[in-house]
């Protein structure tokens, strides 16, 4: 049975969860479903569809704050912000196309619950860093709030951080308040051509360590370069984005180009090409195209200077590219039913960080760990945190780890 409960407001969310508690039902939380196929396959009785909780409830551009019901679409929020020359600085990536869906989907609740971010993560942070306040219904059927509408707040535990990236396993968020920021007036990208992965990581480290205030650093190796729009040539490209006011971008573009010269030939992208390129990076385009969507896809977060070492540790048939100055590596494995988890886990153990099996058939996701396995002490903590919020396992149970 895949019954859907579609509450219209926060009270109905509370009612629905209380009913589920009494009726011993497990719920799958759903926003717009763009990330539904990520995580361990759920063994739930019903779907709690939160897309009915929609609408921006507060927006004060001069105070850099916006509140919305959790099911409000990101597209609606981004359009409203754009009218005021503002944006979500964490640049949430769009998972839709990776699963064959349309671009531009997703809700603010989903973005927060999965702690989305994009190329600007290296400078501006992830969803967690912009999440100011929340009202949510826990797995105990109790409405709680945390945080507020102000940026600077240390009153009580930062429960927002805990809910960001909890994949709906702790509470169903109903209202969300986020920090918004001015949109950059212009952007440009400096591209270094022809670098090997190792050199590229060194170049990106030099750029990030400069005063150029780089807001995106990605390396697109030869074998995937042709998928990225905006590049001067379909060959290995190391892209460094600069954003800000015109005189500043112009100045930094020159400084950065000079700094990158020793690494290799440098090309400059204007605003339009730059925007196109970073859109492709943010949507992981090489692995979202028809034909690539069968491939198991890993998302690896590691120390940026070590990202390139994955090349030696994984099968040569794996395709990959780097964002976050080398700290975020997207790896597509060659065969549909072989995510090669053992070599990925082994590599991550060596380099530090974590890997998530973002895309694989359900049968695979049921058989191998989707999220990074934790040490016993950490797993114990996670389990106890879950039990505090959701002792009966009503909300998205098992989506991250069995029993959590």
């Amino acid at each position: 049975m895949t019954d859907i409960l579609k509450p219209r407001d926060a009270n109905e969310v509370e009612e629905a969860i209380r009913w589920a508690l009494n009726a011993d039902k497990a719920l799958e939380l759903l926003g717009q479903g763009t990330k539904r196929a990520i995580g361990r396959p759920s063994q739930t009785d019903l779907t709690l569809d939160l897309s009915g909780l929609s609408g921006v409830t507060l927006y004060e551009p001069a105070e850099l704050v916006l509140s919305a019901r959790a099911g409000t679409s990101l597209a609606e929020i981004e359009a409203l912000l754009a009218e005021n020359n503002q944006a979500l600085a964490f640049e949430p990536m769009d998972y839709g196309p990776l699963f064959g869906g349309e671009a531009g989907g997703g809700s603010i609740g989903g973005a927060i619950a999965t702690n989305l971010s994009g190329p600007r993560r290296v400078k501006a942070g992830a969803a967690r860093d912009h999440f100011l306040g929340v009202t949510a219904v826990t797995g105990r059927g109790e409405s709680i709030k945390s945080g507020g509408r102000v940026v600077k707040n240390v009153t009580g535990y930062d429960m927002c951080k805990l809910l960001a990236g909890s994949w709906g396993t702790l509470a169903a968020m109903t209202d969300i308040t986020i920090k918004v920021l001015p949109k950059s007036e212009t952007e440009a990208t400096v591209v270094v051509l022809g670098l090997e992965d190792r050199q590229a990581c060194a170049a990106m480290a030099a750029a990030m360590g400069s005063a150029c205030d780089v807001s995106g650093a990605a390396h697109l190796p030869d074998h995937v370069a042709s998928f990225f729009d905006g590049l001067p040539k379909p060959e290995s490209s190391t892209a460094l984005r600069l954003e800000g006011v015109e005189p500043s971008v112009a100045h930094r573009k020159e400084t950065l180009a000079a700094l990158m010269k020793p690494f290799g030939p440098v090309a400059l992208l204007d605003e339009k090409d730059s925007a196109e390129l970073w859109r492709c990076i943010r949507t992981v385009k090489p692995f979202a195209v028809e034909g690539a969507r069968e491939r198991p896809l890993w998302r690896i977060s590691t120390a940026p200077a070590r990202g390139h070492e994955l090349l030696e540790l994984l099968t040569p048939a794996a395709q990959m590219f780097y964002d976050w100055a080398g700290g975020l590596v997207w790896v597509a494995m060659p065969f549909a039913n072989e995510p090669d988890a053992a070599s990925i886990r082994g590599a991550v153990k060596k380099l530090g960080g974590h890997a998530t099996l973002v895309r694989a058939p359900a049968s695979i996701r049921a058989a191998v760990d989707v999220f990074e396995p934790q040490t016993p002490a950490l797993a114990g903590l996670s389990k106890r945190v879950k039990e505090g919020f959701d002792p009966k396992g009503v909300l998205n149970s098992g989506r991250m780890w069995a029993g959590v």
Partner: protein
Amino acid sequence: MAAIVTLRKQPGNLTMSVRMPEPDARVLAKRERIVTALRTIVPGEGVIATEREMKPFESDGLTAYRQTPMVVVLPETTEQVSQVLTYCYGEGIKVVPRGAGTSLSGGALPLADGVLLGMAKFNRIREIDFENRVAVVEPGVTNLAVSNAVAHAGFYYAPDPSSQIACTIGGNVAENSGGVHCLKYGMTTNNVLGCELVLITGEVVRLGGKHLDAEGYDLLGVINGSEGLLGVLTEVTVRILQKAETQRAVLVGFPTSEDAGECVSRIIATGIIPGGMEMMDKPAIHAVEEFVHAGYPLNVEALLIVELDGPHAEVDHLIARVEGIAKGCRSTSCRASTSEDERLLFWAGRKAAFPAAGRISPDYYCMDGTIPRAKLPEVLAEMKVMSEKYGLRCANVFHAGDGNLHPLILYDANVPGELDRAERFGSEILRLCVKVGGVLTGEHGVGVEKRDLMPEMFSELDLAAQQRVKCAFDEKNLLNPGKVFPVLHSCAELGRMHISGGKLPFPDIPRF
């Protein structure tokens, strides 16, 4: 459940009272045995047990509250921290962690029956990694020492609380410290990538590292600002940044605080996020000008310092824009710094605000609410009324960009009743902050100071949910009890389910 423990106020003989967990007679009775056991874990001078030597630890920056701990332990290794906590956990002994003791909210206030765990000896910088742009440091390293250690390569650590010369990174994480550059560069939580944490059970866990984001629950995000209630830090990995090419500041005077507030709003609305944006009211301007002669205009009601950082081309461009906006907001004076000395002079006044208050008044009480910025004129007006009601002067410094207000209530502890009035004045200010949509504390923490005001902001359910997080880390409630939460519930009590309602499958919820 909680006894009245009377704590003496210094100097003078006034007393303040705050309810703290009742000292455990069973623990106090075996004090000697406990001290001996702790000495076997941390040998030599690492265990302090005489009244005289424990004196420096009896309070933190909130000196109105004092309590001699049962014993002070100063471990040097993670292994020692783990063993001390394992022992305390086994024996049911409370533990209060402490960094440099600069907390302004009593977060490191000792307990009569507790071990005070001083982390000062964890003062080494373990690794500086420019390639990954991180520094791995021990928690007792001071905030400024991190910036100093990386300065030769042009780097710095962004959060800069005003106590940065003394306060430690461990304390910064515990309090999620801010500073004047938060609006652009974030608070501690936005600048910490990883930590090593010892749980009360003695288990050692690592959260994060040199990579970004958590693999599962963002426990590091909860540790930031947890005020020493969840675990003891033994290592912290922080993000370091390359310094901007240049910094310049503009000093703008306004005839009213409304005009100054309007100017702040317009600067942000136009798309400029300054590195720092600070406001002072008239009493604060006069107090600091008399003290440091920064050249502040004295005929204004509000003064704004707007600092811009970045490449010269950007800063000059934005300074011109800010000057234009200021003019449009009826500013009566506007000066942009033309040299680094002048910029530092602009800041000298603001940075001396607290000592300047100390100069014009025997004592002052520093508050720390945050408000939605648009409410500033309303809040300032109400504070004037309160100032008259309580018969105490109040000077205001304000992190204008992010709405964090620091009213300094001036009083004299030797005048009977003034301390009490200052406290009531402070509480009323914080209630007002919450009423207008703000919060009790922006960067100083709840500690013991604002603990009993928590219900102004949170319902019982909200607080219970937070305490269940505490239970996940510390089910016996041994780490820093009596701080943050006004009522201590046992974890067993908090764990029980109370399900009411929800008996019907909601005929009125649409189902498909």
